[in-house]
């Protein structure tokens, strides 16, 4: 093992997105303290947005500076920092872009939308998004179990606070408490699983774990099983996969809606990033003489994916509260998002990551869009039940039209991003001959039409109590429309987007960490 590498000045460029975010977070925390009470905290919101955009620009520049490992482009395909514990590669960069973009849209749409009575500490709600996003970025960019865990905790602990910002609301406090307990349990599961892996291989660095795995398999097969399954259980809680999902409905309901969509998109995506990092670096190569372990671990993931799709969809059918409904739809979608990774149980299918990231981008847009609609509607009607949507078409036809597009995408109807995302993942199941998983995905998709069309029916066919126009705020309106247009664009131009992902991402340099 090489000597511990220290951070040099030249490395700060590679860490610029992270550094920008931490700088903004500290500055804004201080600013919030010193700013007089009368000053509207939207200032903090705008500055948070600025910080996210700066970090996003840095990520784009890094993305462009990395080569693809071919002779044509001689720039290095990835950069390793601090003895391999931090990696700047395109897997991380792509995900960081999605995280920063999602966080940016969420902050933007909540400007002027969140009410002071509801969230008395608005300043904190805005600037805490920064460390949370920073945690997510660390999770997608680390090559060491410890760094990954630090990122996870940074994200989790900030999220606990974010859920609790509706200080005067009992449900919100209860939700935050539940989130602390279950989230803490999940972290414990993950850490316990990691400790076994460290014990067996003698390292926390993923590349070194890979080296040590082969000899470990022969001696401590049972321990490896326990290690990986404990991690799976922990991640299942974080991803809200059934039957580890029960916290999600309560927490989503209690949190302010922008935070809910942050949890649904960024927190979930970060957990996926970490799962990919660990499992594609270690578990996938736990083959040994029989190859059982590798198959079993990915089978476990596939079973969880299937369970999440079934339970999420069936549960959503019975929900009257839109936030809880969307929480359960998020459970089902987590199952779908997990499918590409889980398919590795049979063979390596190279399009795995592009299938995942494509659907994840579509998922991010449609969720942020739907949650923004929900924020506006519930702000107007005063409740978050389905009946708040009644007659929306007559009050705000354009918003209703946008919502229909977004819901169709969630349901997976053509021509939307959700349709192609699901289609590509479905092709993956066919390619790898995992027909049972594909069949479950199809069946739950069909059932999910009933879920989303309940909402659409409310908007178009029921008459609501209110007949005044919907009070739309400017940032939320813009966000809804960008999300709608992006959802349609993903449906009309799937190939260029997919090609671009494939161009940027390479399995050799972005997954196979030990090669570094």
């Amino acid at each position, binding site marked *: 093992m090489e000597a511990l590498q220290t951070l040099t000045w030249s490395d700060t460029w590679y860490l610029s997105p992270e550094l920008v975010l931490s700088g903004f977070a500290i500055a804004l925390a201080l600013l919030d303290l010193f700013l007089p009470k009368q000053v509207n905290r939207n200032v903090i919101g705008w500055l948070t947005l600025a910080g996210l955009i700066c970090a996003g620009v840095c990520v784009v520049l890094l993305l462009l500076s990395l080569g693809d490992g071919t002779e044509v482009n001689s720039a290095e395909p990835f950069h390793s920092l601090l003895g391999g514990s931090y990696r700047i590669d395109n897997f991380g960069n792509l995900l960081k872009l999605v995280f920063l973009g999602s966080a940016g849209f969420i902050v933007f749409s909540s400007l002027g939308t969140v009410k002071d009575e509801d969230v008395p500490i608005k300043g904190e709600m805005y600037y805490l998004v920064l460390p949370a996003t920073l945690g997510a970025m660390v999770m997608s960019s680390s090559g060491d179990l410890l760094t990954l865990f630090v990122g996870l905790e940074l994200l989790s602990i900030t999220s606990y606070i974010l859920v609790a910002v509706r200080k005067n609301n009992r449900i919100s406090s209860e939700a935050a*408490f*539940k989130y602390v*307990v*279950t989230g803490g*349990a999940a972290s414990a*599961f993950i850490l316990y699983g990691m400790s076994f892996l460290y014990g067996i291989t003698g390292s926390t660095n993923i590349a070194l774990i890979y080296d040590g795995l082969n000899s470990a398999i022969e001696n401590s097969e*049972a321990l490896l*099983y*326990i290690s990986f*399954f*404990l991690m*799976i*259980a922990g991640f*299942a*809680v974080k991803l809200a996969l*059934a*039957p*580890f999902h*029960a*916290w999600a*409905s*309560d927490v989503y309901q209690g949190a302010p809606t922008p935070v809910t969509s942050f949890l649904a998109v960024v927190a979930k995506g970060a957990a996926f990033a970490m799962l990919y990092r660990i499992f594609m670096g270690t578990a996938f190569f736990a083959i040994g003489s029989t190859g*059982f372990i590798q198959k*079993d671990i990915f*089978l*476990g993931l596939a*079973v*969880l994916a299937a369970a999440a799709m*079934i*339970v999420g*969809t*069936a*549960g*959503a*059918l*019975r929900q009257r509260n839109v936030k809880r409904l969307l929480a*359960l739809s998020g459970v089902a979608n987590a199952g779908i998002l997990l499918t590409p990774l889980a398919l590795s149980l049979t063979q390596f299918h190279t399009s795995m990551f592009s299938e995942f990231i494509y659907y994840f981008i579509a998922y991010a847009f449609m969720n942020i869009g739907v949650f923004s609609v929900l924020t506006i509607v519930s702000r107007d009607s005063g409740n978050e039940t389905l009946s708040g949507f009644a007659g929306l078409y007559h009050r705000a036809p354009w918003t209703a*039209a946008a919502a229909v597009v977004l819901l169709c995408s969630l349901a997976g109807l053509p021509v939307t991003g959700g349709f*192609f995302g699901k289609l590509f993942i479905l*092709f993956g199941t066919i390619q790898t001959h995992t027909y049972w998983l594909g069949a479950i995905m199809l069946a739950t998709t069909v*059932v999910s039409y009933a879920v989303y069309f309940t909402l659409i029916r409310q908007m178009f066919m029921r008459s609501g109590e209110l007949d005044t126009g919907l009070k739309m705020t400017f940032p939320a309106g813009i966000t809804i429309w960008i999300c709608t247009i992006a959802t349609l664009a993903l449906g009309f131009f*799937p*190939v260029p987007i997919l090609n671009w992902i494939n161009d940027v991402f390479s399995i050799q340099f972005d997954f196979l960490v030990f090669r570094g």
Partner: protein
Amino acid sequence: MSTFFTENAWLVPVLPFAAFVVLTAMGKGLKQSGAWVATIASFVSLVLSLCLASERLSGNAADYSRQYDWIHIGNMKLSAGYEVTNLSTLMLVVVTLVAFLVNLYSLGYMKKDERITTFFSYVALFTGSMLGLVLSDNLLTFYIFWELVGVCSFLLVGFWFQKPEAKAAAKKAFIVTRIGDLGLLIAILLLFWYMPGHALDFTALHNVFHTQSGVITTSITTLIALLIFLGAVGKSGQFPLHVWLPDAMEGPTPISALIHAATMVAAGVFLVVRTFDIFEASQIAMNTVAIIGAFTAIFAAMIGLAQNDIKRVLAYSTISQLGYMMLALGVGSVTGAMFHLFTHAFFKALLFLGAGSVIHSVHTQDIREMGGLGGKMKLTAWTFGIGALALSGIPPFSGFWSKDAILSVAMDKQPILFIVGLIAAFFTALYMARLFFLVFTGKPRENQHAHESPSVMTIPLVVLAVLAVVAGFVETPFNGWLGNWLWGEQSEHNVNGLVMILSAAVALLGLYIGWLTYVKGTIRRDAISSRMPGLLKLLENKFYIDELYRALFVKPLQSLGKALELFDEYVVDGIVRASGYSVSAIGKLNSRLQNGQVQTYALTALIGIVILIVAIAGRRFW
């Protein structure tokens, strides 16, 4: 040479689509101005197509196509794209011109209708779909637009859905054309299966079936060609799927003009022209097309003789004229078919709009209740007369030249079909004479207060009348300009004096007999029907085709439907209810777990992971 309009030809269909979207979105807010939005959009696309045409008229304009890969699935790809050739340019001009005139005309005709905005949005969608179909560079997008055209015709034929006849007619049009569409769909699937590289674009079809024939066996080629033809038969109202077209007269009259001249029925002929290489590779298919075409031509012309509804006469005449186009294709004259399509578009649109003007004025469609309208509606009478002469094939009107082009090729290739066509031409002139004389000459009715239509309605008539006169000169036996421009090759068009004289003579004879019968009275009107009452009854009832279909298909299918309904109710619904119940049972279980107690959540998670480990990992250590 500028190629701006060629490269941006996609704008032509996009404009009507945009108008459709705007009208649908703004809807009721627009009121009358919505109609203007659609009319202006169609005018701009007309101007664009005219610019495109003038660009391509100057010298040898190269074909232009642009493709965009839509989805890749494995090594298969679906692409969408457009292709600008002289053929598609010609179609664009015809479609946009007729569509614009119909829009203009409808401003007057539909003025008092409450749903005028809806009407114009449908018309815009209809036009846009047809234009998209014309520009498609592959069969898949062609098929998508083809179906869109079908949907629009359904919407428009049933536009006055308060009338039960209109509702029935819309359903009939939809179902009957679906039979043809199914054929086309199967043909496309077969092509997809057999074509090298699963290519569906027209260039590849041309390469496979024309340049390197033999890649696909003759029997498969024949099958594919016949299935494609089935699609065309449905859309173009050829025998035996012609039954929907006369019923479609229940729609507003401007729509009849649009359907019969430029959009719906032309799509069928255009399909065969586009896939003509496949037909040429199979003699059986060619003969089928020719025979069906010729038979339809004479069959529909005979029915047209005995109809009393002004629009129905015209409808049968459309069927008959489309038969001519199919006949032309069957005997190998693509130029003839396109030429007739081109001239027919103008005079048929003219006749329908003229009929609409008459109906607008006297509020009836029965020609027995009309008469002497010529005096009060001079402009309508004159333009209608020009249209009638063009349709009858009187020189030098456009219909004469295009019909002559078809008949002279038929004479060379299949003399029997030539004679059939000639007889049909006689009937054509006869029923047009009957129609014209009964409506416009004779004594005016006293209780009718006929009046000339407003100028938004008469201007289109005049424009079309001019075109009906001059459009024929683009391709005469002495000057094969159209064929040359379309295909870039000198057509072997020889002056066949005999055909010209014969076709002009039978047309004149038809008109003369009509004049003797309905004006002069030399021949008694019931001269034939009194001697052969059976024949008249047969014709009036359209050879009992509808009744035959009812007995053969509709009734048995209805009984089958009843049986299936029972099956559906008890077996299918049972399964659906059972699966619905099981899903909601899972949901219930989920809500029982979700009782708000975080201890329960943790316990569930723990049980979950234990089960997972025991079930998956445990079996290895058992």
